[in-house]
């Protein structure tokens, strides 16, 4: 049982690390601010959830797990809120995506 939990937790940790690295690669590769925002959110959601889940399995039924879950819940609320704040600040200061699909709804924006 312990072995299975250990293997599962390593799978979570390694795949979580994978998403963190992918987010970093995306942040470098993507062309403009708006696209980079999405790359960062891969690190923020997938990476964070998987790494916290892996750490929870390592900790077992202890207070550490409770704290990890609470950290996860905090990040679930604060992460998107700060992303929204950054995106909104960019919009208000007049930054628009480099390439934008033209359609009836996007025309209303500009």
């Amino acid at each position, binding site marked *: 049982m312990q072995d299975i939990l250990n293997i599962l937790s390593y799978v979570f940790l390694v795949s979580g690390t994978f998403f963190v690295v992918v987010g970093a690669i995306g942040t470098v590769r993507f062309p403009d601010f708006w696209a980079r925002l999405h790359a960062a959110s*891969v690190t923020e959601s997938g990476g964070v959830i998987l790494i916290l889940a892996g750490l929870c399995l390592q900790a077992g039924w202890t207070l550490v797990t409770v704290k990890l879950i609470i950290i996860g819940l905090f990040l*679930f609320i604060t992460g*998107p809120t700060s992303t929204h704040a950054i995106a909104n600040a960019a919009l208000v200061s007049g930054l628009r995506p480099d390439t934008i699909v033209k359609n009836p709804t*996007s025309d209303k924006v500009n």
Partner: protein
Amino acid sequence: MRAITYTVLLAALWLLWSGIYKPLLVSFGAGSVLLVLLITHRMNRVDGDRLDISLNPIRFIGYFLWLLKEIAVSNMNVTRVILAGTMPIKQNLFRIPHTQKSDLGQVIFANSITLTPGTVTVETEENEFLVHALSYSEDDLHSLADMDRRVSATEMKSNL
């Protein structure tokens, strides 16, 4: 009644946070709970602003599990875009109407949009959100409308 709920909640949180139950530390904990109660009591006199959580807990847990699945799927999609040689980006800003009655419901919907990689809520307005998508397709409108329905379903109707 509210004060009792507060005390139990704060004490439970302190006990979960601490993990060391020596008499001295527990008395510090009791002291800090009392201090927080005192401060919140004073704050309440200054502004009576409070948040009513009108969510159906069982429905919300169901929604949360569904959201985790959505996050997994859209993570894979964005990962594919990042690692693809050509980076098929098709950015778009578009508006999505929201149907939640409470502020909390709208916050949950807006944050859910941002939590799923590939879409970010940029601006919130009276009846709609301005959303930015990384690789836009017509399907985004449908899946976001579906998410909107699911968030609205977690709201409790009786309180509104």
